[in-house]
């Protein structure tokens, strides 16, 4: 006798509450089977978003610090710029290391193209929170537009980052031996070019953050909005 036949016999023979209990157990088992909790899972969109947002915010403050260090070289040029140069070299080193995460993200967005965001959209379609799923369905056109804007901003960041970093590295190399007023003055063009690229980069990061905030607002259930 198989397990199924035992259960079926139990259901047939039992009346009243037992029948209901067995039916409820069967229903619970089916619901359990339908969930995707056992399979390998990508990070939830929420976790992914929080981490991504954090990376973008960190990159923005890193940019602030780097551009400030760059400014200080010019400001301190007619005094003793050695300390300003040392701080600048440290800032460049930090940006070389700390930018890896955000650059890897924007590069991956380019490499995967639309598939990167389709992955997020697919997740939104299967999210367990019914309110969020409903909101995602309602705001599908706006979300699509935000994903597109996010992709464009990421492209801007990706395209400007490398030339910006190259300018900084060149400046660090050129000024290392003698960070004097004459040398700094000779690199005025490079400093201005680096600043310009830095500002473009900041704009790109600002745009990414703005789009992420829009997406978060679109998917926030009304109760959470009221709480805020």
């Amino acid at each position: 006798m198989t397990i199924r036949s035992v259960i079926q016999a139990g259901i047939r023979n039992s009346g009243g509450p037992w029948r209901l209990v067995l039916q409820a157990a069967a229903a619970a088992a089916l619901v359990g089977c339908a969930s995707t909790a056992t399979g390998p899972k990508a990070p939830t969109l929420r976790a992914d978003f929080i981490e991504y947002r954090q990376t973008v915010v960190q990159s923005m403050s890193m940019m602030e610090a780097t551009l400030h260090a760059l400014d200080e070289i010019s400001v301190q040029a007619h005094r003793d710029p050695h300390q300003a140069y040392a701080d600048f070299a440290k800032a460049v080193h930090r940006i070389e290391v700390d930018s890896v995460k955000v650059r890897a993200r924007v590069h991956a967005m380019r490499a995967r193209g639309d598939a990167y965001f389709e992955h997020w959209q697919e997740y939104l379609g299967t999210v367990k929170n019914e309110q969020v799923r409903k909101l995602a369905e309602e705001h599908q056109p706006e979300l699509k537009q935000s994903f597109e804007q996010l992709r464009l901003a990421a492209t801007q960041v990706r395209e400007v980052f490398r030339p910006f970093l190259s300018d900084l590295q060149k400046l660090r190399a050129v000024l290392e031996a003698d960070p004097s007023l004459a040398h700094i003055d000779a690199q005025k063009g490079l400093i201005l070019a680096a600043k310009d690229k830095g500002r473009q980069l900041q704009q790109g990061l600002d745009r990414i953050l703005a789009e992420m905030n829009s997406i978060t607002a679109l998917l926030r259930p009304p109760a959470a909005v009221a709480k805020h």
Partner: protein
Amino acid sequence: MRLLTNLRPNDSKNDDLPMNLISSKSALPLGLGLLVGLAVLWASVFYAQAQWPGTAPTTPMAQRNAMNLVLNQVSWFQNSTRTASAYVGGGYGMLLQQFQAVRNQYSGFKSTLNAQQLSSGANQVAELDSGLDIIQEAFADYQTAVANGQSNGSAFSNMAQVLNQAMAVWVQEFKQDCSQLQVGW
């Protein structure tokens, strides 16, 4: 093997019956046995094709092994970045070689992921791929820095530190992704 055993008359439960009855009653089981045998044979051929030499197995054990190989290689690489300047010739070539070894181990690791992991972790895998490409840029940056007038010692020391710290960021992501994708479970 299953095909042959199914055809053996001794395996039949009806072997105490007279011959004429066996022939008439075992016609259906024999046919079914033949079908089952063919199905098993087809499945074994299909499995053999799926496990063709050159493709890595995707068992949890293989995944765990491949993951540990990546982690070990990263660890060796990070140790090398700390000691490379003491090597004859500056250790640039040695670091580059070690970095390629990390890439190779990571490539081997990816080949152990199953279809579901590759699909649900496609963004994460793309980010890890890009991360290694970005870290590799440090080698070219070192050469550019020297060409731009930076001292060899300072440029090399900077490259080694960038490689070490950037690899720490990468391996942290790698571990997190492995955990989320249930690698080796």
